[in-house]
């Protein structure tokens, strides 16, 4: 048998525990974190990785927030190719991410969404690079000596070439999977499908593992099983980001997080990292710590209609 140039995953039962998934992310890995901003970020998996003490990760992504900020606080990063890390106008700049990059502990390799897309596409297609017309004239090439320029042999125009980017692992939180690792993502996929296709490995947490027949009724796999290495059923695994339709964004938890982060690394370590990442022995302990069933019910209330949904965000919006 000729082995493929890139791995395929055909294990008929890929179920693992959350901590087993976390252990599959090695120090120094290039990691594509799925979801974006306040939605479907694989937070439980990131906490499991931090508890294990993962180090020297390179992160790539488009629009991120609390996920990359938390990894920064836990000392897990050495390089960031993110396009955006922040809490939008709602809370502001990402305090832990800022500190990590300003101190030089994490190398600033900022990228741009479409540049990332083109680099992932090159990896997906097995090509060494992809061209772009954009970004020429900005300061980004000074951060990326790996970019090249070429004159197009067909049109004579100048193009920027960005090399293929093949993450070691994509970390994705989806709504549903079956035991083979077929994934259903509902709502905006952001860059998750590209991440899954471009990466050497996909580790997925999901709200529910269901039989394949049921998965097909839910619309069928958007990420087919052969990209996926392992899957863990992790309820509320995106908390405090949203995983609709199960739960909305936990804005009050995020406000608490942000306030602690803003006060500095020591206070953040004591008031947040210790309480919500290191002290809870596992994800069940975390769920108890954030308020258990009462919190789940509060965040599921968005389903009751527009007003309930609005009210979830109303308490502090006008602060």
């Amino acid at each position, binding site marked *: 048998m000729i082995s493929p140039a890139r791995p395929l995953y055909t294990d008929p039962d890929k179920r693992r525990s959350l901590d087993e998934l976390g252990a599959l992310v090695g120090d120094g890995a290039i990691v594509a974190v799925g*979801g974006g901003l306040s939605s479907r970020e694989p937070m439980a998996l990131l906490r499991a990785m931090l508890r294990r003490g993962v180090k020297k990760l390179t992160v790539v992504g488009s629009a991120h927030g609390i996920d990359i900020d938390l990894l920064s606080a836990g000392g897990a990063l050495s390089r960031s190719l993110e396009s955006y890390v922040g809490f939008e106008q709602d809370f502001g*700049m990402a305090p832990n991410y800022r500190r990590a990059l300003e101190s030089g502990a994490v190398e600033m390799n*900022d990228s741009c*969404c*479409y540049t990332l897309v083109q680099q992932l596409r090159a990896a997906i297609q097995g090509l060494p690079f992809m061209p772009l017309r*954009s970004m020429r*004239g*900005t300061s980004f090439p000074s951060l990326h000596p790996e970019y090249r320029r070429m004159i197009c042999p067909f049109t004579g125009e100048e193009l920027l070439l960005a090399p293929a980017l093949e993450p070691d692992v994509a970390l994705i939180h989806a709504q549903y999977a079956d035991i083979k690792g077929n994934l259903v993502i509902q709502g905006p996929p952001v860059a998750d499908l590209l991440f899954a296709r471009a990466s050497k490995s996909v580790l997925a947490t999901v709200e529910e593992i269901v039989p394949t027949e049921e998965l097909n009724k839910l619309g069928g796999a958007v990420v087919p099983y052969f990209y996926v290495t392992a899957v863990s059923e992790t309820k509320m695994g995106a908390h405090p980001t949203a995983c609709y339709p199960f739960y909305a964004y936990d804005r009050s938890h995020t406000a608490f997080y942000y306030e602690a982060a803003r006060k500095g690394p020591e206070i953040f370590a004591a008031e947040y990292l210790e309480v919500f990442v290191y002290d809870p022995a596992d994800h069940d302990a975390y769920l108890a710590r954030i308020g258990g069933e009462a919190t789940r019910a509060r965040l599921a209330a968005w389903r009751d209609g527009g007003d309930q949904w609005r009210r979830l965000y109303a308490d502090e*919006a006008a602060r």
Partner: protein
Amino acid sequence: MTQTCTLGETMIAALARTIDDGTLVFHGFGSPLVQLAMHVAKRTHAPRMILIAGATYGVDPDPAFIAPTTNDWAMDRGALCSLGIEELFDLAAAGRMGRMFLSGLQIDRWGNCNVTALGFPNVTMKLPGGGGGGNLSCDAGAITLWTAAHRSTTDERGRRRFRLVDKCDFITNLGHRAEDGRARRELGHRGHGPQWLVTELGLFDFDDEGHMRLRAVYPDTSADEIMDNMGFAPRLAATIDTIPPPERRIVELIRKLDSLGVHNKELRAEDRRRVFPLAG
């Protein structure tokens, strides 16, 4: 019946006026003033505008309220579908995106924006990053810039900090002059670069050379005040107009869409108190 409008509502209306009917328009994250301007435009003068929401990439969504974060199903409600990230950026690269809205913590005389880092290469403050701005500032047909922090501040050492600066420390979003001083048009980009800049103090466009030019003030600001809050001298249009207030129906639409007042988060406290009489 309401007789006044706020500064925020006036800015939203001014941003909305930069949108042409029948064009494909996109906003990024962290920009409720722009989200509201796009929804106002689609419901008033630009019904055939193709509205693509940032972060969800939802096509023509109809949200019941503006949520405090952009990538929320609340913002995607009623959308025909969500594009993949690649499809949205392909539309721009292929020349189908008519307008994009961009901002920066530094904006220079050529409309370049810095959202990456202050002090680069000796970084004094890491900024959040520009998302897709480095790509879309080159590819989108036209750019509307905005900021609600034009008024300069004074730092702890008594130095004035300008949002509108002579030169950006890092060019995240390309304006009309490249980092090496080359004119934008020499680079052969799809897009024509910044066309408008809406701030809480005034309205600018960009002249034939691509230099920022003051076009209009608010009823409570003056050209002198505007220039005193900039790190360089803008050019001046032949006549300086006053930015018109929005129509009453637009004010009512904004208040209905933004019942949580999310757009106020973009405004400083002193600017939230500014009100103007409505037309008529």
